[in-house]
């Protein structure tokens, strides 16, 4: 059949476009369908894209006139908040100024459409310039099946056929559920909800306020009073001439505590440490999206079947170890690995589950599943009330004592810390936590 594609990719986000790039470079004939008006139109993330895969996918991406990303990250901060204070761990390094960058901040509507343009350039240079397609405004209603095998997609009255389908439909993975890779009802404790604002600040203000130079950027994560007692955390990332500021809130706990996410966002923005960073800014866009918790238990046990693979957050591939939220790099790598498996299957002339099992193996051998497994204790730790409530209170109490000078005889730091711990928890509880943290991180 002439119309048949080597591969159909559902979803023009980072997982789907990364897979598309690999297929385009291998000169495969593929169709990518995106339901938004353009790639990125339906996508939201914090967001930082961590690691070096982007440089592998789009070599020297930082050299273009329009490099797609907002700022490269050379300054990171983790802040523990109580009602009035912020106690921070802060790291800035000129080694992070070097290309390829270790991480870049992105705005998805811009970044994903940029990445789609890079894929289109590669398609245009290949032999399938006319019949490999990035199609927008197309909603897939169902996967087309022949027996137990996925053979294409159905959209409205039309069916498109392919040897293999990659589902890169994001966390709200309706098609993945349709074929039983994930159960039809996903419970609240497998997900969180992110709410965010992009707030404009003049570039000069941004540079001075956050000590930026050129396109360098700051990432700041927050735990403690950031979420007003709800399990979760906050973030602030610098863009070109705006900041992305928001919260990630555990769905089940938000429900139990009966809080509105936008009220919590207002409270976070009013915290003295945050308010100072945002003052004078103008809200350009408010957004929200469900996000996987980053718990390895949420990842379906099998991410492939006859003729189909699942990549990115549709597979709940996301790590939140406390060091960073890694969703987009997980999407990118899984998209790359899925496309690699599709190419091997094409060579073997067989896209059965037996062949596509190589994808699962590749994921297991990569940092994605290795880190998801080895940091699973850290994920649990970060989701414990001790970590997101008691520790910030202890640190801020200690900070007030240690950094406060009051013209009275001062106690030693160790005694100050002991006193702060005793006020909010027990020494034994903190000793256990310290031990667990040292082991799990």
């Amino acid at each position, binding site marked *: 059949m002439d119309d048949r594609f080597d591969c159909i990719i559902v979803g023009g986000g980072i997982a789907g476009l990364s897979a598309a790039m690999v297929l385009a470079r291998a000169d495969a004939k593929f169709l990518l369908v995106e339901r938004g008006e353009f790639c990125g139109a339906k*996508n939201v993330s914090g967001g930082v894209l961590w690691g070096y895969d982007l440089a592998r996918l789009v070599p020297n991406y930082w050299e273009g006139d329009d490099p797609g990303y907002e700022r490269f990250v050379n300054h990171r901060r983790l802040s523990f908040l109580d009602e009035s204070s912020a106690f921070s761990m802060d790291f800035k390094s000129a080694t992070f100024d070097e290309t390829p960058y270790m991480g870049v901040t992105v705005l998805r509507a811009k970044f994903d459409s940029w990445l789609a343009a890079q894929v289109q350039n590669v398609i245009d240079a290949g032999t399938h310039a006319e019949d490999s397609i990035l199609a927008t405004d197309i909603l897939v209603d169902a996967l087309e099946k022949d027996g137990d095998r996925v053979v294409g997609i159905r959209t409205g009255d039309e069916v498109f056929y392919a040897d293999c389908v990659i589902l890169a439909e994001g966390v709200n993975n309706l098609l993945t559920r349709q074929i039983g890779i994930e159960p039809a009802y996903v419970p609240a404790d497998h997900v969180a909800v992110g709410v965010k604002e992009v707030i404009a600040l003049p570039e000069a203000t941004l540079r001075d306020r956050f000590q930026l130079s050129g396109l360098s950027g700051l990432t700041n994560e927050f735990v403690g009073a950031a979420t007003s007692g709800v399990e979760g955390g906050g973030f602030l990332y610098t863009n070109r001439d705006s900041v992305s500021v928001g919260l990630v809130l555990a769905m089940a706990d938000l429900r139990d505590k009966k809080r509105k996410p936008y009220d919590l966002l207002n409270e976070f923005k009013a915290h003295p440490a945050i308010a100072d960073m945002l003052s004078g800014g103008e809200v350009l866009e408010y957004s929200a999206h469900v996000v996987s918790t980053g718990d390895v238990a949420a990842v379906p046990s099998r991410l492939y079947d006859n003729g189909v693979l699942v990549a990115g957050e549709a597979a709940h591939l996301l790590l939140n170890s406390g060091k960073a939220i890694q969703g987009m790099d997980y999407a990118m790598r899984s998209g790359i690995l899925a496309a690699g498996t599709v190419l091997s299957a094409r060579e073997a002339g067989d896209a059965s589950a037996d062949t596509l099992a190589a994808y699962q193996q590749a994921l297991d051998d990569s940092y994605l599943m290795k880190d998801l497994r080895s940091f699973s204790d850290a994920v649990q730790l970060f989701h414990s009330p001790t970590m997101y409530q008691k520790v910030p209170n202890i640190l801020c109490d200690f900070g007030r004592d240690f950094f406060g000078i009051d013209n009275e005889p001062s106690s030693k730091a160790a005694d100050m810390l002991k006193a702060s711990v005793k006020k909010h928890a027990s020494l034994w509880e903190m000793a256990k936590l310290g031990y667990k943290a040292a082991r799990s991180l």
Partner: protein
Amino acid sequence: MTTGMTIAERLGRVAYRNQGRSDAKAHIEVDTSICNTSCPHKCTTYVCPANCYTVDEAGLVHFQFEDCIECGTCMYACDQGAVSWKYPDPERGRGVNWQLG
């Protein structure tokens, strides 16, 4: 409690598809008879980041899809089977059109 932007002001900064269409097709169906009879928490009325679920003076839950930003929250938060969640049709549905994302 702090003051800040209202949810209406925030949603005023969101771009939607088919904004001019008065006959847009709903992509989420909510069986509010479940919300209004057996549901113990009516959680969608507070967890929804776009305030699409509201309670009237008589305590009844109402849903409107026009402000929906397709985040997915209600699909997970509702554990009573009241929410049937689909993606909006690009041509005839509503849904979000992020400018920044």
